[in-house]
């Protein structure tokens, strides 16, 4: 049962933080280049456009869900399992989700990068 709770929580972390990253990325693509916008229309316009974006607010909510799932996972298992497992799975899940939902061109180079970083994170925690 402990195993099921731990991996269930890790799955929740991965899904929620991937959804959060994808939503935040989508929101910021809608807003457009923040540097250019700031120079042209000022900081308040930038802040207003970001905060009025529903994807941004939903993205923040998903990040909060991910954070509380992390706290839950940590109450069932060691940080040395939870942190690297969720971080490295999130890298790979993000590459898949960005390809499907954001239509990003995830070429060999980006797959290699996601897998190398995911593997590296596991080794660092080992």
């Amino acid at each position, binding site marked *: 049962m402990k195993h099921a709770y731990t991996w269930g929580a890790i799955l929740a972390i991965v899904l929620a933080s991937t959804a959060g*990253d*994808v939503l*935040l*990325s989508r929101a*910021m*693509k*809608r*807003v*457009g*280049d*923040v*540097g*250019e*916008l700031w120079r*042209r229309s000022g900081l308040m316009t930038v802040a207003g*456009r*970001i905060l009025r974006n529903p994807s941004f607010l939903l993205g923040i909510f998903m990040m909060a869900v991910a954070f509380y799932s992390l706290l839950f996972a940590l*109450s069932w298992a060691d940080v040395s399992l939870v942190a690297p497992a969720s971080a490295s799975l999130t*890298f790979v899940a*993000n*590459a898949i989700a*960005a*390809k499907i939902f*954001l*239509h*990003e*061109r*995830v*070429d060999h*180079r*980006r797959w*290699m*990068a*996601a*897998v*190398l*970083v995911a*593997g*590296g*994170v*596991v*080794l*660092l*925690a*080992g």
Partner: protein
Amino acid sequence: MTFRKYLVLAGVTLFAAIGDSFLARGMQQVGNISLQRLPDIVLTILNPWVALGILFLLGFFSAYMTALSWADLTYVLPATSLGYVLLALIAKFLLHEQVTTTRWLGIAMISAGVGFVTQGPALTHHPPHEDEGAPVPEPVGSRMEP
């Protein structure tokens, strides 16, 4: 990719690593918080290390949002994962922790991943017809530039 954009990516990396380190240091001073006394977690921001850590993490979030406004998610995430390497180096040289061969191998793999992704383009260019149902982003163009 301009120099300014690389600076923003460096900001994402540095602020996250520094923020996390400060938070960790602060929470070690605060000590364990039990589930029965969960509201105490609000008071932890009175610890200067925790407060400083939160400040850096706010900086991280602004830099991260800025980067996502002009680069793909699958570019930003690996490109800023050098923070893990930075944390390991801080552990070795500032905190004098032991960094094992396995960890050095992990550092090498992450660095290789960062090298791979930063060689490529930062942003996927979508042909205009691809996103027809969705509202078109408000243009932030060079046309307006003096």
